[in-house]
């Protein structure tokens, strides 16, 4: 590719640009959802426990029928320790997701980090909220009582914490998706071009192979066959054989860029499971994939970002017209991105 034909760099003036006031607002919103919200839940949990601890019986009711009659009890200490551990796990997951989203938005090439981050934040907030709600419910219902008989809740009362936690987690996931993936869209970095002239037509294919794919797939198949003949149980051999076939089937990609759009074929069979018509694509850029991640990550539907990562190195990154991002590692991604931008411009 000739350097003189590389497309002009668009100035980065998006609301998510680092340093702008939009970026500060986004960081605040993320900090409230991922930092302050779980902290407040855990603080409420600790405060209620501290206030009511001395009034709780040694065995507290923790299971109720649908009608609200208590049916099970648990040691006070065990229940609160378990809930505390679960809340801490939720807090850790939320912070992990927060870091992933921040890194994803700052580097903006790591589109799939955002998908992973949203999932981690949603699960983390759910775990923290359900532990906090469970502790508060159990503490309030059992306070001053003597055990099973006196601890009843209103009809369906135990579903309140579950429903509330799911809602809170969904809300956190939505907010992180809304404010976490802004600059994951086209960040104004250079859009390469081939300089395709009017009337010229072109097609590009590139491929990428996970280096460990063949040995790993063959190893799984061989292990499956050996277990098959050696044991009477079928679960393990069938699992290994399936894993081997899956490994061989999905650890290489062949990406085609043509006037009809972008097609990704997977594995030796070339299963074409991913297609983007040209009219759905806004622009294409090249990203450098870090060696830390691999696999099919994220989800276009749920998180607005997905990535097929088979190896470190160059990747083709598509920004779709609806702001979503798709990334696939492929050799010579620069030529593919350049051709795609020219085809979009000519369409």
């Amino acid at each position, binding site marked *: 590719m000739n350097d003189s034909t590389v497309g002009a760099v668009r100035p980065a003036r998006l609301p998510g640009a680092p340093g702008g006031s939009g970026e500060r607002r986004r960081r605040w919103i993320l900090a409230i959802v991922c930092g302050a919200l779980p902290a407040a839940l855990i603080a409420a949990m600790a405060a209620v426990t501290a206030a009511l601890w001395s009034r709780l019986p040694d065995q507290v009711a923790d299971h109720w029928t649908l009608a609200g009659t208590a049916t099970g009890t648990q040691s006070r200490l065990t229940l609160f320790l378990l809930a505390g551990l679960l809340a801490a796990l939720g807090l850790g997951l939320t912070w992990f997701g927060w870091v992933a989203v921040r890194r994803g938005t700052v580097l903006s090439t790591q589109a799939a980090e955002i998908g992973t981050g949203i999932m981690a934040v949603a699960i983390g907030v759910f775990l923290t909220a359900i532990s906090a709600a469970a502790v508060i419910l159990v503490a309030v219902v059992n306070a001053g009582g003597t055990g099973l008989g006196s601890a009843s809740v209103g009809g369906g009362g135990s579903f309140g914490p579950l429903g509330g936690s799911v809602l809170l987690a969904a809300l956190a996931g939505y907010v992180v998706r809304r404010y976490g993936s802004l600059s994951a869209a086209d960040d104004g970095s250079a859009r390469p071009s*081939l300089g*395709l*002239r009017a*009337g*010229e*037509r*072109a*097609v*590009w*294919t*590139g*491929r990428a192979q996970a280096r460990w794919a063949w040995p790993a797939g063959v190893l799984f198949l061989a292990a499956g066959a050996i277990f098959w003949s050696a044991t009477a149980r079928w679960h393990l051999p069938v699992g290994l054989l399936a894993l081997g076939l899956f490994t061989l089937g999905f650890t290489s990609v062949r990406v*085609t860029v*043509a*006037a*009809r759009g972008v097609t990704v074929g997977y594995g030796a069979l070339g299963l074409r499971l991913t297609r983007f018509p040209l009219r759905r694509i806004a622009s294409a850029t090249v990203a450098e994939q870090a060696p830390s991640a691999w696999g099919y990550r994220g989800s276009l539907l749920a998180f607005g970002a997905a990535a097929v990562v088979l190896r470190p190195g160059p990747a083709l990154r598509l920004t779709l017209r609806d702001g979503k991002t798709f990334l696939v590692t492929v*050799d*010579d991604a620069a*030529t593919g991105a350049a*051709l795609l931008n020219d085809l979009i411009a000519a369409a």
Partner: protein
Amino acid sequence: MLIRIDPGDPRPLYEQIELQVRGAIGDGSLVPGERLPPARELAEDIGVNGHTVLRAYGALRDAGLIELRPRRGAVVASVSPPRQQLAALARGFIQQAREYGLTPAEIVDLIEGQL
């Protein structure tokens, strides 16, 4: 592998396709054993007749660069002819010489000095 067709180019379409596949094999972007796109699909993507692509593939097969198999389609031949290997070596040599700042005339002088 990029295949780029210019209807304004005086060379016939099949020759343009053939030259670009040759180039891709020469510079290593197509490796032995790799499948070329099916003729019908490539023809649709670059807007030419299917026979044009088949003619290009036929010429490449005659040159020993690809094999045409009934089910697998066009596959890059496992052993490229000696001339093709030399061309790839020359390409690498020239690239290196350019990186050292040699002009085309100086590169030719260098080769002639070795003959």
